[in-house]
């Protein structure tokens, strides 16, 4: 369980996070979504007892992160963003060391168990320095799982993994999330949709949206968009033709020759657009919907205009 209110952190004069308020229940996987510098890592470092907040309160696994930091740290598993590891140790020795720091009983057995969970049991006696980036990521995850923590905090857990591993690690997180509380950060909207029950979107240190993934999508996609391509140049006539169709809200020619148009969600105009384009004598090569990228969701939510950058 995580409960945060009024959480603020200043690095010198720079405010990294500002008055955050959110919670996460047991058995819930919460995604922390935001662009670079949004304050995700900062928040996680406070929740794991690495550093105290400038202001505000955070309760993790029933204990205050400042007042009872040690109790919190006993109950939290943490995968830091940089995945720090002792590269001159073997995977087994490293995990055993971390396990001993946590006073885990039968530590050798448990280390083998978690190495198995992350699929690296055959690399147990190899030096961490000789492992690939994705493997190190998984060693970091194994370290976070070692003591069966009540709360799991994972800073970009799937970054650097190959597609097969991404699927496996997500499966693992989903499994763990059934009984425990998981907070994970990511830049990937589809990852959040894939594993999280709920998403917090954070930008410039503030939470700009908080909802279940389904609700968030429905709310954001007030308008749907699609692009089409015809053989040859997309001329003004084509744009005019599309614009004239009832239900089409905005039409724009892209640099690559694609024509993008918007329509109210639930009122799909694509069949009509296709019909009209062909009727006007164009050869329709492609017509497909485009999803909203994370960046666009931020634009939507923050009202900032980064297109001018």
């Amino acid at each position, binding site marked *: 369980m995580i409960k945060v209110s009024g959480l603020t952190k200043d*690095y010198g004069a720079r405010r990294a996070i500002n008055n955050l308020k959110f919670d996460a229940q047991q058995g819930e996987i919460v995604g922390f979504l935001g662009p670079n510098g949004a304050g995700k890592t900062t928040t996680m*470092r406070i929740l*794991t*007892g*690495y*550093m*105290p907040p400038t202001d505000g309160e955070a309760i993790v696994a029933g204990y205050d992160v400042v007042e009872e930091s*040690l109790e919190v*740290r*006993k109950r*939290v598993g*943490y995968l*830091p963003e*940089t995945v*720090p*590891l*002792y590269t*001159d140790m073997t995977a087994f020795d490293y995990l055993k*060391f*971390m396990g*001993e*720091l*946590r*006073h885990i009983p039968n530590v050798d057995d448990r280390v083998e168990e978690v190495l198995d969970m992350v699929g690296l049991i055959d690399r147990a006696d190899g030096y961490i320095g000789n492992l690939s980036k994705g493997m190190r990521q998984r060693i970091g995850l194994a*370290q976070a799982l070692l003591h069966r923590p009540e709360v799991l905090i994972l800073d970009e857990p799937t970054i650097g993994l190959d597609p097969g591993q991404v699927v496996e690690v997500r499966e693992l997180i989903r499994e763990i999330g059934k009984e425990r509380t998981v907070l994970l950060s990511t830049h990937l909207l589809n990852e959040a949709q894939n594993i999280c029950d709920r998403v917090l979107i954070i930008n410039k240190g503030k939470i700009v949206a908080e909802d279940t993934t389904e609700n968030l999508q429905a709310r954001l996609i007030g308008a749907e968009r699609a692009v089409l391509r015809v053989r040859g140049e997309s001329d003004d006539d084509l744009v005019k033709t599309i614009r004239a169709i009832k239900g089409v809200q905005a039409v724009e020619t892209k640099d690559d020759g694609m024509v993008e148009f918007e329509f109210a969600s639930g009122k799909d105009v694509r069949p009509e657009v296709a019909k009209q384009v062909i009727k006007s004598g164009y050869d329709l090569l492609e017509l497909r919907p485009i999803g909203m990228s994370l960046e666009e969701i931020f634009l939507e939510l923050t009202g900032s205009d980064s297109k001018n950058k």
Partner: protein
Amino acid sequence: MRTIWTIAKREYDNYFNSPLAYVVAFSIVLPVGIYFSLIMYVSAQQSMMGGPPPDSTPINWLFVFLMIFLSPALTMRLLSDEARMGTLELLLTAPVRDFELVAGKFLGAFLFVLTIALFTLIFPIIINNFVTPGIDWKVIIASYIGLVLVCGALLALGTGISAIFTNQFAAFFVTFGLFFFLWFMVNLPANYLQQGGDVYNYLSLSQHFSSMNRGTIALGDIVYYISLIALGLFAGTTAIEIRRWR
């Protein structure tokens, strides 16, 4: 305590994988061994002519003198490297008190130096077997207690300084500078002052060690070294705490 031991054990094992630690160990054992051979030679001749019993305490003097120059290399990366590699984030988010971390690091280095010191114990034992009536063990024991204490003080201060820096070389030079000052320089004003020179003598690492090395264990000397150990560990703990708040 268990946590301190876990950290100390890892650090101790680490030294045996570190070329630098071997260099340091040999740079102590080798000169000490050569010095020992010289003493053996001289005292063998002296005792043949009915001279005074051999004195092995200069061996420990050399040991400690070398530690002034070499121990900063043993402590420089203890905590600075954790900060540089980011592994400090692991330790500070594990249920480890800041003091336990610093004390564990110190203990690891201390045990490594004790291992070297234990090794040099063979020298007085050999001397003892070669000469009659043997050596004065009371002096040797006092000398070794002094050696252990002074090494403890040096390593604790070095560990503390290592916690302040992210760059191990910065930690090395500051540590070495401090030791140089405490060994050679801090008692200099005592030579010129009519009064109050005792304070400067009291601060000097070498003054305290030289009296212990002669076989007298005074409470003041022990208090001095224990205070330095406490100071080093306190400075290290505070530096880690400040790191968190930054």
